[in-house]
């Protein structure tokens, strides 16, 4: 008898190992996004309007997101990668096609952001935000003009600035400073960039991700390589900061919403994308995260004084020598190796 009881108990124990808590009545949409890149209040609005619950997770780099989706074992229904990563994910068949007829608010998206090279027909992605990479600096602490990447190799700013802890963006800074394309597939150019970054390393205060804003505000760092929206968020709060678009050119990027392959809630994901494309929701997000919207309806709602600023909606003439990242294909292993070697030094 005892034996039977213990066997039954064991079976029960094993069985519970494999059951999560599942409620069948409610659709739960798994959203995977950059940290601090959406106004989380809108989830409630979305749930009220559609009854669909949002499960929210964040990542810090495109590469981190890619690895998690590529290696499987995760169930995301929405993610928001950047240009080159979308190109790579399309090539590797990691994305579900998007049916634009189910997204009426797609009409709100400025045609400037549609049909970009990484997804020429917007078959897989819908624009979310766009921006640049540049240098934000504290005008109290840095009085000389900042207009070039070369300030980041200047001895007098030793220990005063941070680089961005993202492989493509940091290598981009060195490539652009040296006058090369940031999409180079030339190994000599890449090695030169590596040397430049290793040379620069003693001057760098830190390689940082999301906490760069805190470091600037607390004056831990006087200058930082940042994505424009971070600059925007800081500058709108504090007067003593400015954002420079380096004259050698930089990265102009576009983050689009995608549906990863294997999503079980494709219908709901479409609903969510349509929701994001709504003018008022776009405004809430733009207002919260500080990045530049791709949405014409949202454009009408934003603070018009932002138009023409370097950090939010710059004059397009300033962006003429800016590039968009493209996926280097298999050559990415060289970027990977070089980034590892820079960090290991």
């Amino acid at each position, binding site marked *: 008898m005892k034996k039977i009881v213990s066997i039954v108990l064991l079976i029960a124990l094993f069985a519970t190992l494999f059951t999560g808590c599942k409620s069948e009545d409610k659709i739960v949409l798994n959203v995977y996004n950059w940290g601090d890149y959406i106004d989380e209040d809108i989830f409630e609005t979305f749930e009220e309007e559609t009854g669909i619950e949002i499960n929210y997770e964040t990542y810090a780099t495109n590469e981190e997101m890619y690895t998690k989706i590529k290696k499987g074992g995760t169930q995301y229904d929405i993610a928001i990668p950047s240009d080159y990563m979308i190109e790579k994910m399309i090539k590797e068949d990691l994305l579900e096609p998007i049916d634009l007829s189910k997204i009426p608010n797609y009409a709100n998206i400025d045609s400037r952001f549609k049909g970009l090279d990484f997804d020429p027909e917007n078959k897989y992605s819908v624009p979310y935000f766009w921006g640049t990479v540049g240098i934000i600096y504290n005008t109290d602490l840095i009085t000389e003009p900042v207009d070039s990447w070369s300030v980041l190799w200047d001895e007098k700013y030793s220990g005063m600035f941070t680089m961005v802890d993202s492989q493509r963006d940091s290598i981009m800074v060195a490539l652009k400073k040296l006058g090369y394309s940031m999409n180079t597939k030339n190994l000599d150019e890449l090695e030169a960039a590596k040397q430049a970054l290793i040379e620069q390393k003693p001057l760098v205060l830190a390689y940082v991700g999301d906490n760069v804003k805190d470091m600037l505000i607390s004056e831990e760092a006087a200058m930082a390589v940042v994505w424009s929206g971070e600059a925007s968020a800081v500058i709108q709060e504090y007067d003593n900061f400015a954002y420079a678009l380096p004259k050698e050119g930089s990265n102009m990027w576009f983050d689009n919403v995608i549906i990863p392959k294997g999503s079980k809630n494709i219908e709901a994901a479409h609903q969510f994308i349509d929701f994001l494309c709504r003018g008022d929701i776009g405004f809430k997000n733009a207002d919260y995260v500080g990045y530049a919207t791709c949405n014409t309806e949202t454009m009408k709602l934003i603070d018009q004084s932002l138009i023409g600023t370097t950090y939010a909606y710059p004059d397009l003439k300033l962006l003429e020598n800016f590039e968009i990242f493209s996926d280097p294909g298999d050559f990415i292993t060289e970027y990977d190796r070089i980034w*590892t070697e820079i960090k290991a030094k």
Partner: protein
Amino acid sequence: MIKRLSSGPYLFWMLMFVIVPIVMILAFSMVTVTSGGDWSFSLSNFSRAFDPIYIAVLGRSLKIALEATFICFILGYPMAMILAKMPVKYRTFSVMLFVVPMWMNFLLRTYAWMTILGKNGIINGLLSLLGLPNVTFLYTEGAVLLGMVYNFLPFMVLPIYTVLMKMDQSLVEAAEDLGGDKRTVFRKVIFPLSIPGILSGVSMVFMPSVSTFVISNLLYGGQYMLIGNLIEQQFLVVNDWNFGSAVAMILMLLILASMAIMNRFGGGNPEERGANLW
């Protein structure tokens, strides 16, 4: 029969969460994947790990982990002795004080150090109040070392304290009766008897120190690559799980070797020591 059955969950646990993952890491580390997705057996991941750059990373990790362990020992042993000698009334409370910080999230504690050590942090605030110049604490090797010592010190103190507490006081009294002065008693009786606690403390500090990536990431701003950072980067950033697995295997062997060396050091009954170690 029941006895055997009741070990089932434990065996299952071992198999699923210890044996299978290790075999998987080993398999990953001995394989290279071409861009087309073809797998082939190769040891190139290991030979790459012996590139001077990565040897330097390994050396750096070992050095700072040994330093952290040494400092923890120097600080921890007297603390454990003080604790063990306290009257019971205060002792429980004091031990609690050691344990309570561990209830707080490890990340949070490390973040707190960032605000303490920062350029405009608490320490520099005090310095400037005294009219002294600012000192850069954060984003230096010292900050990482401090983070390790702070986070792992309880793991050194508690096992040594436990051993000292359990020690048969009559042995100490006997030594004293036989004319040993305090120093001799400590050297000949207390210290040798506390070795199992020291060994367990040393390994519990050394292992997390040598493999950490969070402390170095936060307190040295992602510039200071320890072997843990290298592994993390291979898995999360550059997506080279094979090389990452090879480095993880090497780290594992290293820890295994250091444990073997430590077991040689300590005399006494190995079984007793094993029990204390875990």
